[in-house]
């Protein structure tokens, strides 16, 4: 009895020793951090800098009211986090009650297959009807950015979401697809043995991308996963430089012109796509529907389950006899060929490609779409791509075009800190991320493959 009191008084002494004065509280460090963030926010949203005057962006942002607004917002956020427990409780209760009231609907959707099908048909009908009634600008955005990037996002989802690998050179395969189309339709300086139409070049492009993916992946997938990220980054640069510098092969930085629009001539069906964007949207929609169907099947197939196993615990997966390298390679190649398909459609839509269409920025954009929407969930990545393409275009008069990259970069970091599973998460992926944080499994395929295959 006396022992416990002694221990108690001892622990009180220790606590006294440990107790910090009010100014030593970590919350003041956090306040400082928020103030710094406020300055950065003011810079982000401020005027563009003038290159001749190196400090103009700083003086411009800091001398206006903008700085004070930004500081006020972030200090407010800080105060809410530190002292606003009641407010947050109300918000949480509100969220929970909304979630509860939505739960029956959700359960109905989950259990009733017909209802789900109905929902999908409705979305499809909307996707057919709405674009026909929008302006030419939006139709153009819909085709050359949204549709293309939806296909890319679905492909990247296979690599990042399902296989748990980070591919930062995804646009390289998009470029390879686009240049394959240019090559097989006979518009590059190097002529193919026979020429085909734009649509018929798709299988060639897919096969080329598959081969490129395997050639790049085979040596690097045997290594630690984070090497893959930087090797793909390097690979992208190689593809870009080859496209830019080899005049005799890709026509260099002048690019390839005159890539034909797609056309179909099978039996009674005769159709030629022209400059009008709307028919391309329907073409893309067709590809998307096919891809979604196929990849949905793939996710629940033996291969998809294998990817899940590798992601959740690579050591256990290889112990049960899975050749992890082969399955990672498969995911990598499937993703690459999907990107290639998007490249073909893009090049035949615009008819003109040059290396600047395939900069590294696009790879990060595609990654941002996938991560924002929700890694591993097809609906999520489609939503992510659609929203993040729509948003900068809708705000194009308010936010300068180049600035959206700043926001997207910040978005990636914020998503990773607060919601790594994305807006519409895949339930399995969400659980994996939580489990990995609790020390169970990996949630990615970044560990070094065990068991033999090391070069």
């Amino acid at each position, binding site marked *: 009895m006396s022992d416990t009191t002694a221990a108690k008084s001892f622990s009180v002494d220790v606590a006294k020793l440990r107790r910090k004065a009010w100014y030593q509280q970590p919350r003041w460090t956090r306040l400082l951090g928020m103030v710094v963030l406020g300055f950065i926010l003011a810079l982000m949203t401020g005027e563009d800098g003038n290159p001749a005057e190196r400090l103009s962006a700083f003086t411009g942002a800091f001398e206006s009211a903008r700085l004070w607004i930004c500081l006020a917002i972030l200090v407010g956020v800080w105060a809410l986090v530190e002292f606003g427990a009641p407010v947050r409780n109300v918000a949480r209760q509100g969220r929970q009650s909304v979630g509860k009231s939505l739960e029956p609907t959700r359960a109905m959707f989950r259990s009733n297959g017909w209802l789900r099908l109905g929902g999908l048909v409705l979305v499809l009908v909307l996707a057919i009807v709405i674009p026909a009634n929008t302006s030419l600008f939006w139709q153009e955005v819909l085709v050359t950015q949204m549709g293309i990037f939806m296909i890319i996002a679905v492909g990247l989802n296979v690599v*990042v979401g399902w296989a748990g690998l980070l591919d930062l050179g995804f646009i390289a395969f998009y470029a390879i697809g686009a240049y394959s189309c240019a090559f097989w339709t006979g518009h590059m300086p190097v002529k193919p043995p026979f020429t085909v139409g734009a649509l018929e070049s798709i299988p060639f492009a897919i096969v080329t991308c598959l081969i490129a993916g395997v050639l790049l992946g085979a*040596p690097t997938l045997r290594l630690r996963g984070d090497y893959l990220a*930087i090797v793909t980054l390097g690979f992208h640069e190689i593809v870009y430089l080859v496209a830019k510098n080899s005049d005799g092969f890709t026509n260099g930085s002048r690019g390839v012109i005159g890539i034909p629009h797609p056309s179909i001539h099978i039996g009674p069906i005769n159709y030629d796509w022209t400059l009008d964007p709307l028919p391309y949207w329907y073409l893309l929609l067709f590809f998307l529907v096919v891809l979604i169907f196929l990849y949905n099947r793939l996710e629940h197939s033996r291969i998809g389950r294998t990817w899940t196993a590798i992601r959740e615990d690579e050591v256990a997966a290889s112990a049960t006899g899975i050749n992890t390298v082969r399955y990672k390679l498969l995911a990598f190649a499937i993703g690459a060929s999907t990107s290639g398909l998007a490249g073909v459609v893009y090049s035949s839509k615009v008819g003109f490609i040059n290396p600047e269409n395939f900069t590294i920025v696009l790879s990060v954009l595609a*990654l941002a779409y996938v991560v924002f929407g929700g890694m591993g969930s097809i609906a999520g990545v489609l939503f992510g791509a659609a929203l993040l393409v729509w948003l900068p275009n809708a705000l194009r008069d308010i936010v300068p075009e180049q600035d959206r990259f700043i926001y997207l970069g910040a978005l990636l970091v914020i998503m990773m800190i607060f919601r790594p599973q994305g807006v519409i998460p895949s339930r399995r992926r969400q659980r994996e991320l939580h489990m990995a944080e609790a020390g169970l499994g990996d949630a990615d395929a970044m560990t070094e493959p065990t068991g033999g295959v090391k070069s």
Partner: protein
Amino acid sequence: MNLFHNFWDYFIPGLTTGSMYAVIAIGYTLVYGVLQLINFAHSEVFMMGGFGSLVVLSELAPQSPHGFTSVVWVIVGMIAGALVGALTAFGLEKAAYKPLRKRNAPKLVFLISAIGASFFLYNLAGKLWGRNPVPMPELYTNGEVFSVFGTPVKITQLIIIGSAVAMMIGLDLVVNRTKMGAGIRAVAQDAETAGLMGVDIDKIISRTFIIGGLLGGAAGFLYGFGISGQVWFTVGFLPGIKAFAAAVLGGIGNIRGAMLGGLLLGIVENLSSPLFGTQWIDVTAFVVLILVLMFRPTGIMGERLGRSA
């Protein structure tokens, strides 16, 4: 076109860029040592160092200084670059890595956060200083000092090689001789055990980023004023990725390996330019990276995670 005739013409610039890569590569390798993670945003630390020194020099330095004043301003530029680089690296660790580390997030999450931070930083720099290259102020006339087998060696090259060597020696001493260096090595070997032995892991990681940032920022200044003569918002991309290749070439996690790898990569890259043409110079580094990964993924000196010496 004849490599052997002009060997030294390519070797000296190779040594110059190589020592630059070596200094940047140390940043990658240090962070890899303590976190087992590629710091994708390290190239942005380099870029911010370049811009930081550019701003300081163009605001403060006099028009075309000469004599002793040029020396002073070169040193000021380097210190400014190093400080801005350290500040960037520190902020980066606090904003993009620490919250994830506290949550024990998977590696994929770290990498995406890092690439996001990198994207954010270089586009922000593009907004602040324009998206076209900004020339560095000239600090002296870049004359010839002496020649090696008929190849002139310029002042700039001497400064770059000299300061890079000084930084590398200094870093080696810090890591191997000081208490903080012992802490870094301990965390790199086994963070958990180091924590139990009384090492403040958070502090060590933060300081590792700062050291990497100091070196990266100083390298940003050296690159901006000595090699490219200008700074632009994507300046960090190529040197960054090449320095990473150098770190892998030397054996990631191994500091001396990173130094050797950087020097080798710079020399190989410059020697390849007469063979294949200058436009392919950037491809060489990536091909070297892929070849190293294929045939000796542990690098030349071997991965010595932890025993960072």
